[in-house]
């Protein structure tokens, strides 16, 4: 089977070439996206089969000559291949309709399959060379997709998404390269099998761990390496945004899990603490920035940062349990993390599709220019609502099931001997709880501002429902969100081989429990039944409606009441910015939010205005100085461009002399 799956990678490349040739015709779009859909279905099927199958390996005569190209398919890669298949298939389906409105298909069609090819290669790779090759292919093709709409991008003063993304992607590739270098050791065994056998010293292990955390974390969007993500993800076309947020971040998570759980020897305890700290901070900071964001797609990107934080908290707990020899706990924690990764792929793709549909219908991303779309786009609005409820971790949808599992892992409270872990568990529990509550606030605001209320602009007033392809894609993901929420046991059981391979233990079989209840440890300790909760709510709701409608009289439509002072102008309704004001006041300390009101004196005829200034706790102290330094150096180096040929020659000569001198002194 691995052969067929490996063949998918070149097939994607071929599709990309087809995209170059046929970009100008309608059929090209159908061909590329339809082909991607079929290939993704293959990935999904193969990945699901690999979850239960044996480990398969294959060595191809490509790559570095004396190493060859090692490919491997095991439960872990099967799970992530299925994620790519799912997310990529959904994005292709959505793009079949959404792609119609693309102004420059030539900038998107060739890179979309290449992007998928890169991600698939990363998952299948079993040596450092192919892994990094896939990683860079993924980075570069997604960078090209981010650049597709660069000309209509943000103000020139703002950081340029493509530039920042390219820098961070290069950085992440570099750190991973170094990590593999450390892992391979002096022998230089680039195949993962060599690394598994090669027992490195504690210092090397710790170094490789930190490098892997930085490399994979910056691709996934771990604070403080997340700065590129809210810039780059929204800048791409919406189906690509969905793919980047929903799938590419998961590939990064895969990279981390593969290196840390599979390739590395057990690490010292502070590494788990590091992951727990980073995860907790990422979750809260991401969602807080999402609450403060006006741009719908950027809001979703920040929410991705939050969810990555939740996943990394789960992984950190799994590491902590594993190094203390508590395999059952590690199995629970890693299952929770992977379950959340799966859920995030589902609902974040759905939400980005919804944002894309809105963008297509209104041409807007700023929520302050939307409103009332539930009337104009009822189906999209319904599916988007399902996505909002899922991402807010509300039962009976899937987001709740995985967060519930994560909380159960926190509550295991084994007697961890290390004080750092002992303190980080409760703190991370509190941070996750805070993040979950703030996510609900964030998505009430997003949905309320975009879909509810009255239209704020003519564009929103005249929006029309999107095409059937897009709606099918959204509906499919909404349904999956519900199914994963009411049958969490099925997902947990499917993940059992992965946790067995990574932690040496698995959670108890869930589907055997009566009534499809999930119970991570024992039913008396904690159990949750999504199916029962869902049907309970549905039945009692229907019963209530039936009963109430028997006794009550009909409804009458009238102008809104609004305490007797309804205002006709849509500007008088609560906006997204006014909605976040209380939260801004409470949590604004972190962002040093300053509101300044410019109120003209009575009689003056200019408009009043309110401006908000916000300080980014990561960008301003950390990246702004670096950016400043780089441009300062660049400014100085600029002189080099305008020298005579003689000066250039003297530089070369000087360099040669210095090198020779070094060599002489070295000996």
């Amino acid at each position: 089977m691995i052969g067929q799956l490996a063949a998918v990678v070149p097939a994607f490349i071929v599709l990309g070439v087809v995209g170059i040739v046929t970009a100008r015709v309608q059929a090209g779009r159908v061909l590329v996206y339809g082909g991607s859909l079929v290939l993704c279905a293959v990935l999904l099927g193969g990945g699901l089969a690999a979850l239960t199958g044996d480990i398969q390996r294959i060595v191809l005569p490509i790559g570095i000559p004396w190493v060859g190209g090692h490919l491997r398919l095991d439960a872990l890669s099967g799970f992530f291949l299925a994620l790519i298949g799912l997310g990529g298939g959904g994005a292709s389906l959505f793009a079949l309709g959404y792609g119609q409105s693309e102004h420059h298909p030539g900038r998107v069609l060739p890179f979309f399959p290449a992007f998928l090819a890169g991600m698939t290669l990363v998952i299948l790779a079993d040596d450092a060379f192919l892994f990094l090759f896939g990683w860079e292919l993924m980075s570069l093709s997604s960078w090209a997709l981010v650049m597709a709409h660069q000309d209509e991008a943000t103000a020139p003063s703002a950081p340029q998404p493509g530039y920042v993304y390219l820098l961070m992607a290069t950085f992440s590739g570099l750190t991973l390269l170094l990590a593999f270098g450390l892992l391979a050791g002096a022998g230089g065994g680039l195949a993962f099998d060599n690394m598994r056998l090669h027992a490195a010293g504690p210092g090397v292990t710790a170094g490789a761990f930190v490098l892997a955390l930085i490399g994979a974390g910056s691709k996934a969007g771990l604070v403080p390496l997340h700065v590129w993500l809210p810039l780059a993800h929204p800048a791409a076309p919406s189906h690509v945004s969905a793919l980047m947020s929903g799938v590419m971040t998961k590939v990064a998570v895969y990279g981390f899990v593969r290196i840390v759980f599979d390739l590395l020897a057990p690490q010292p305890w502070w590494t788990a603490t590091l992951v727990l700290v980073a995860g907790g901070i990422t979750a809260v900071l991401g969602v807080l920035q999402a609450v403060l964001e006006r741009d719908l797609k950027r809001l979703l990107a920040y929410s991705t940062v939050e969810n990555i934080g939740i996943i990394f908290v789960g992984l950190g707990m799994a590491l902590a349990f594993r190094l203390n020899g508590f395999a059952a706990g590690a199995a629970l924690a890693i299952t929770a993390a992977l379950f959340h990764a799966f859920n995030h792929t589902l609902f974040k793709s759905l939400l980005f599709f919804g944002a894309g549909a809105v963008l297509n219908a209104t041409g807007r991303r700023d929520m302050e220019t939307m409103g009332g779309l539930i009337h104009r786009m009822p189906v999209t609005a319904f599916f988007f609502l399902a996505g909002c409820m899922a991402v807010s971790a509300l039962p009976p949808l899937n987001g709740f099931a995985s967060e519930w599992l994560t909380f159960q892992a926190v509550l295991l409270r084994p007697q961890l001997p290390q004080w750092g872990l002992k303190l980080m568990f409760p703190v991370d529990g509190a941070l996750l709880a805070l993040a979950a509550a703030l996510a609900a606030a964030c998505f009430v605001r997003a949905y309320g501002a975009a879909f509810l209320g009255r239209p704020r602009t003519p564009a929103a007033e005249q929006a029309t429902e999107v095409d059937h392809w897009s709606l099918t894609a959204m509906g499919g993901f909404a349904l999956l969100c519900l199914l994963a929420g009411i049958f969490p046991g099925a997902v947990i059981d499917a993940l059992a081989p992965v946790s067995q391979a990574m932690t040496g233990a698995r959670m108890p079989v869930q589907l055997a429990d009566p009534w499809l209840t999930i119970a991570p440890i024992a039913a008396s300790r904690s159990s949750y039944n999504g199916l029962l909760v869902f049907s309970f709510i549905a039945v009692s709701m229907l019963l209530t409606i039936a009963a109430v409608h028997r006794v009550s009289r009909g409804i009458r439509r009238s102008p809104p009441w609004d305490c007797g002072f309804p205002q006709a102008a849509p500007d008088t309704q609560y906006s997204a910015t006014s909605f976040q004001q209380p939260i801004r006041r409470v949590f604004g300390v972190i962002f040093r939010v300053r509101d300044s009101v410019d109120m003209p004196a009575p009689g003056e005829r200019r408009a009043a205005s309110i401006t908000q200034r916000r300080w980014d706790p990561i960008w301003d102290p950390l990246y702004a100085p670096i950016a400043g330094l780089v441009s300062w150096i660049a400014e100085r180096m600029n002189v080099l461009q305008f020298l005579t040929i003689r000066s250039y020659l003297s530089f070369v000569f000087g360099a040669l002399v210095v090198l020779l001198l070094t060599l002489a002194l070295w000996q």
Partner: protein
Amino acid sequence: MKGADVLAMLHALLAQGVQMTVILLLAPLLTGYVRKVKARLQRRRGPDLVQPYRDLRRLLGKEAVIADNASWLFRVAPYFVFAATWVAAALIPTFAANLMFSWSGDLIAITALLGSARFALALAGMDIGTAFGGIGASREVMIASIAEPAMLMIVFSVALIAGSTQLSTVAEYMLSGAAGIRVSLAMALIALLVVAIAENGRVPVDNPATHLELTMVHEAMVLEYSGRHLAMIEWAASLKLMLYISMIACIFIPIGLAGDTNSPLGNAVGVTSWIAKMAVLGAALGVAETAVAKMRVFRVPNYLGAALMLGLLGVLLLFVSQGM
């Protein structure tokens, strides 16, 4: 399946059904009772104990007037809020533990179910596009964004002590006295009282009887509702109050709780003690509401933040030392 099994299952189903019906029917009475206690403390005669029932009947009978631009969400939300709150309430051991569906959701699920209800209501507040609906929804989510983590911290403390997040198991553990007297439990209790007051929109966080628009939170959010929709929301609010008081009772004073529903005597004791607890705690709520003044909206985060910190401190103590 044998005949006896079927009978046992029917019995369990019956007990669960009785619990759900009783809690549904008694919830407005508790609201009326708290109002009465407050009125008497303020030297007013106050409305009858059954006044909430009359209100509900009147509202249900009336025509519902809704705004021209209300969407389907506005019309569905009240039923969803009601159903989610009711399901959450059904998971609480009121007079007996180990009811049939008690294991389908634990304390975390109960918290999240109430969160679902709030999510729907806040959205409905924004649906018409009025200033009041927006201000209510915005403040509600701000309060919830601190109250919900505080609640989860309380759940964590209780769960770490009892070794379970299942409310029935927790109640049995507490009943057995194995918990003893613990610092973290005291912290959880104080935090839970604070959160319960905030979640139910009682003084000093919000005032259920206010008509001063700028101070309203919950009332501003549901301003556009009338008729049967309003009845559903009011009923859900009563249910939520009863849910929280029952939850406090079953965790911290589980005395009298029936272990299983098979013994008639146990059930009778359970029901009596539950009603007595409701009466005492409801009166305490009335007294507390009379004794304090409502605080400014932007003092609420401090107040709830203190509950969050207490909860966190309790959990921290439990992680560091078994004995606390």
